[in-house]
């Protein structure tokens, strides 16, 4: 089993006719994802590799029965695209776009919450249920179907983690990149809740980084509500305070948001925290078996 995306996912791609949209749509199709529609305002009626393109999400959903959206729209228009998908009752919305202004995301966040749609991202690699469905920009071949759920704030660091899992024979149920921005649709707790409820997931790997208090909040949640074994990793022990480390969300302010504080909170919650990234795969074998 898996969470949020699987063989029943019918994907539409917003921004399908752009360079990135085209490239990654093809990668998803190659992986086996059922891409049913594209949306680019003004290009309705065209096709991309035989996939019909529509002017609006609502129209695309009505014509094709799409139930998930992947967004490659440029940052200045991405919040609007997310809200359009939510207004059209798309169940799972995956926003890949990096660099959306925070105030745009604030409005968007509340619009999505009240719509009942689930937003993943923005500024994320997407979500993949290995062997079933890939909605995102992650390299497909490093994944391997299995029963460990992965949730992470990062992109390439997630690939590193997944690669180690696969090489050590630890397969994955679903891997979610929740995104590196300060305001995101799905947080650690949401993902943990879904993995806890999924009978196909037997253990969880949680990859955090400096900034905010999401890891601490998640640790608290795990104590009360997660019975499955959890492995954690936090990036940024050597990051200087007050600087934006690439991700807009990765800033240590004052003494809050440090990697040290997050690691301590996670250890206190009974999570096996990996300090040496090189040992993540072998630790997973010890904790989860393979």
């Amino acid at each position, binding site marked *: 089993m898996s969470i949020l995306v699987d063989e029943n996912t019918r994907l539409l791609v917003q921004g399908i006719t752009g360079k990135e949209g085209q490239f990654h749509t093809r990668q998803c199709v190659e992986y086996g994802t059922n891409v049913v529609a594209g949306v680019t305002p003004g290009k309705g009626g065209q096709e991309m590799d035989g996939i019909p393109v529509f002017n609006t999400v609502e129209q695309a959903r009505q014509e094709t029965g799409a139930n998930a959206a992947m967004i490659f729209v440029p*940052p*200045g228009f991405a919040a609007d695209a997310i809200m359009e998908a939510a207004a059209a009752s798309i169940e799972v919305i995956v926003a890949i776009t990096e660099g*959306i*202004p*925070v*105030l*745009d*995301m*604030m*409005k968007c966040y*509340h*619009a999505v919450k009240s719509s009942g749609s689930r937003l993943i991202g923005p500024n994320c*690699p997407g979500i993949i249920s290995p062997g079933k469905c890939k909605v995102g*920009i*992650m*390299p497909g071949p490093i994944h391997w179907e299995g029963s460990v759920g992965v949730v*992470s*704030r*990062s*992109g*390439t*660091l*997630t*690939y*590193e983690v997944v*690669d180690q899992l696969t090489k050590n024979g630890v397969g994955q149920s679903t891997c979610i990149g929740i995104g*590196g921005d*300060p*305001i995101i649709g799905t947080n650690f707790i949401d993902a943990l809740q879904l993995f806890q409820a999924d009978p196909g997931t037997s253990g969880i790997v949680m*990859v955090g*980084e400096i900034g*905010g*208090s*999401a890891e601490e*909040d998640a640790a608290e949640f795990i104590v009360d509500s997660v019975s499955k074994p959890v492995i954690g*990793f936090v*990036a*940024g*022990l*050597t*990051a*200087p305070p*007050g*600087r*934006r*480390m*690439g*991700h*807009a*969300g*990765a800033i240590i*302010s*004052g*003494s809050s948001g440090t*990697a040290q504080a997050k690691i301590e909170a996670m250890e206190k919650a009974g999570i096996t925290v990996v*300090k*040496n*990234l*090189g*040992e993540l795969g072998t630790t997973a074998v010890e904790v989860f078996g393979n």
Partner: protein
Amino acid sequence: MNIHEYQAKELFKKFDIPIPQGRVAFSVREAKEIAEELASMPVVVKAQIHAGGRGKGGGVKLAQSIPEVESVAGEILGMTLVTHQTGPEGKLVRKVLVEEGLEIDKELYLGVVPDRATARLIFMASEAGGMDIEEVAASTPEKIIRQQVKPGDGLQGFQARSLAYGLNLEPELIKQFIPLVAKLYNLFLQYDCSLVEINPLIITKDKRLIALDAKINVDDNALYRHKEIQDFRDLDEEDPMEVEASKYNLNYIKLDGNIGNMVNGAGLAMATMDIIKLAGAEPANFLDVGGGASAEMVENGFRIILSDKNVKGVLINIFGGILRCDILAQGVVEAANKVGIGVPVVIRMEGTNVEEGRRILDESGLDLKVATDVWDAASKVAEIAKSA
């Protein structure tokens, strides 16, 4: 993006938020002219750098006469100001804000920041103004009152009133405070701020509310739609190597160690810095070349890393996804040939087209140490640092 106090006050003025009279000066002569225009004493001379704690560091001084304005402006302009936020090397002061001195009855705090967890703006106010607000929050959290505002709904009257009553303001000050909160909110939205802070917001002896200080940070992601703020950028306040890196869309932050590193993706870059340290060496930088780096970006990345004279070795850690390993390998080989790399380089590559990438490096004839995994890479580069 950070802006100066005097720039923040220009924005305050535009929004009719009361500030002391005064202007910025780049020379002692200008400082004197401004003081003469003000035509009242005392006058305050404030160093303009992108760091807090200026007063404690000797960057804010009071003058009682025109000659004294000249002498304190002369002392501050050109000084290297060291505060808890500048680091031990300090910052060179190139400009000062010259303002009327005011008689202070009480110092308050008023600030607005976005809250990630609730996706709302938080107004914070406190009677404990003029102090480090992080310290107030840590030691006496009850002294900070908060109001959360959902941008779609906007700031409500009752929220501004709650802040006013929470600050125990007298009725005539409440009349000034409520519109001030609304103006601050509008300013925050107008310029896509990520922080607006007035510390202190003073009550003068003659019962006026005035923003004695002003701090504004603007969301980098929104700068594209604020030409006015872009013009506020002060390259003197930024590390020259970071400015150079930003020209090539490279995300570079200089650190104090001796192992340079180049990584794709911010999370992996931080994790790579951490593992360098764990292996017993110190990272010299953070450098994220991004997901779609070109050979040219890799070359410029190399040049910037190597321009830091502390660097004794370089670790390249790439997880190929969108950025294919063969493209990276080509970039490294081209860079090595063009830039000339005088220090040992350890490369660890994984992911898309890794075999092809390794072949290119092998056949290049360059002295590159290829690592099998992250820990192997970090250990190899730490070994280099020890023998350097």
